[in-house]
């Protein structure tokens, strides 16, 4: 049986991770793969830790990624990326947004945001791709295109026709925001 590829998205509720995983799944379906994706709604939003599991291949069974089997950890925030590192395969890769969002215990002064997390990630997984998502989104013309920038960076690690990415974005992004999203995707891809 052909192998299944696993991408774990991790970040904070409200960052738009579910929409990013929708675009990713759409691209994979267009590329002809069997695709499953899963996330949890409800209590885990409201600023809590959020993950989305995306799996694709010839035939996918489980909608959630087996522990220790993620090929790519796709992080939207540094701390949340660290939290889900145990899901990553021995030779797995990381794409991560250079962003820190304070959890409530840090924001209220009870704990500190751990220092040097980015360096720690780099020391464990040296080929990690760190993306300045917000800067590139601003360059693309709209700070709200961070997730599209990140998808662009992710696309470099995947063997999927660029045309399909653009088609999926055109299908899923509202018309008036298409131009800036295509730009954002391109900037992420080149980063």
């Amino acid at each position, binding site marked *: *049986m052909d192998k299944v590829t696993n991408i774990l998205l991790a970040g*904070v*509720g409200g960052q738009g991770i579910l929409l990013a995983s929708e675009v990713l*799944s*759409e691209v994979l*379906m267009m590329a002809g793969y*069997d*695709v*499953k*994706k*899963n*996330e*949890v*709604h*409800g*209590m*885990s*939003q*409201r*600023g*809590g*830790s959020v993950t989305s599991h995306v799996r694709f291949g010839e035939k*996918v*069974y*489980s*909608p*959630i990624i*087996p*522990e*220790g*089997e993620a090929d790519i950890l796709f992080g939207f925030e540094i*701390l*949340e990326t*660290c*939290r889900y*590192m*145990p899901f*990553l*395969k*021995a030779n*797995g890769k990381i794409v991560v947004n250079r962003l820190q969002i*304070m*959890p*409530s*215990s*840090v*924001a*209220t*002064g*009870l*704990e*500190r*945001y*751990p220092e040097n*997390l980015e360096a*720690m990630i780099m020391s*464990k*997984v040296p080929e990690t791709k760190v993306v300045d998502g917000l800067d590139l989104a601003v360059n693309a013309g709209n700070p709200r295109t961070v997730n599209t920038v990140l998808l662009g960076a992710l696309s470099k690690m995947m063997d999927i026709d660029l045309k399909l990415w653009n088609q999926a974005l055109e299908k899923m992004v509202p018309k008036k925001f298409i131009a800036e999203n295509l730009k954002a995707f391109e900037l992420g891809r080149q980063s």
Partner: protein
Amino acid sequence: MAKEILSGNEAIARGAYEAGVKLAVAYPGTPSTEILENTIKYPSIDSSWAPNEKVALEVGIGACLGGARSLVTMKHVGLNVAADPLFTLSYTGVRSGLVLVVADDPELHSSQNEQDSRHYARAAKMPMFEPADSQEALDFTRLAYDVSEQFDTPVFVRTTTRISHSKSIVEEAEPQTGLPEPSLKRDPAKFVMLPGNARKRHHVVEDELLKMADWAAQQPFNRIEERSAEVGVITSGVSYQYAREVLPDASVLKLGLVYPLAKKLISDFAARFKTLYVIEELEPFIEDQVRAMGIDVIGKDCLPICGELTPGRVAAAIGHEELVVNHTADVDLPNRPPNMCPGCPHRGVFYNLKRLKAFVTGDIGCYTLGFMPPLSAMDSCICMGASVGNASGLNKVLPESEKQKVVGVIGDSTFLHTGINGLMDMVYNGSTATLVILDNRTTAMTGRQENPSSGFTLVGQESKEVDLEALCRSVGVEHVRTVNPWDLEQTRSVLQEEMDRKAPSVVITRGPCILIKRDMGQRKTPLEVDADKCTGCKACLNIGCPAIEWRPDEGERGKAVVSQLLCVGCGICDQLCKFDAFKLVDSEVKNG
């Protein structure tokens, strides 16, 4: 036909449409909510939110009396509310197909327990389908209507969070046509469940279940995947996916119908294997029945009853392989629990309840987050509507010195769900507790659904609004006060007065959920902290607002900073600051 990538919930809505469903009704509840949010895409279906699951099922039965196919959906705990009509509905059977979707939540991602609703199929004597992916969610829903009519019974479709919220590729089909038009048809022997009629119907139910078990042994939804001659697995639902992942070479009997079990199929399958697993989440529901047939299996002696299954947990349980952890962060990572949104109208209410040292009987909704520090102002949370009865009972048994500390807290939607009954009891039976109705004009936790007091229906049409004040007065509450929850001092003094009052009283804190889209006007200019005035006293941190960030290294004692991205200018922090350090962004003016 078209291929789409659909969630289990979207696929169930599609299946209902393809089955010619005319009416769909529900009370929102994670993970079932999106089913009804998707039936509204099909104008041929009358979709609506009922005030609670019992009413939803009764509305569904009404449509069935008229000969229209109907869909009723709820989360697992909602089924407890609907259990009364359910147990008699299985006796009456149906005139036209009635399907009840129940969505369980193993692992309690967003629930107060992890009950296994498969037990309801057996207890209420109703067949239950269990899909393992979105395609089956669509196919089984559609099929369930034919089964409902063929065997004259309501039919369950049971999902779990991982089925409802997983997306997978689905092939859609054309909707069924040629179904009979709804009409009046009297059939009292079948639908009037007086003892004389019900006694006869009970025999019909038992006969149909036996027929169904035989029939199910021949149906493609119960299928055998032949592989190993040594190892066999009996499984269903999402557990099937994990079993396939962990035991790719095993032969699998995958059950689509988990009640009644196709016993002949199971015993023939079981006889062929030296090693036989039953892999299922939560309770040993299939396992116990298989063991009762005299078949020895490996099941809950190694698989967990608590929590959901995952591929790793199944592998570990059956001793297949050790979990491999290749990377860890090597540092303690602060947790990131959910929190009330910036600008949430509930925040100030809980801040005050804590200050007043109230003993808070809580309820189900976003406001259950009032439990989290630093607000830490919730002392019980049982089920929908429980806050009111809990407050009454507690108030009655306490000594005079503590009686008036008891405050029930409930949201508008939850109050109308099952809180109003408790309020009648509070007045009727002389409790002197206080009830706070947190009226945020929506059913917020599940994603802002309309309710009978919001003024709109599921499809967005304007509707009559329940007048909460008038409703409370009508059941005999003489002291009903309404406050603006963003005004801390007003809220505190009214809460204090009503807590002290030796009579039942209601305080309605009325402020729309900050996320309601039609009312975005309440978002105001963000505030900022004047660093020169901030003394680092940390008073503003006591409300746990996600927009306020503590910077321990600034100034002598640290300083507070407001995130301009998150702040919606509700001004609660400003009311707490004794040093006037909060001001409108880009302004020298103190926020008024």
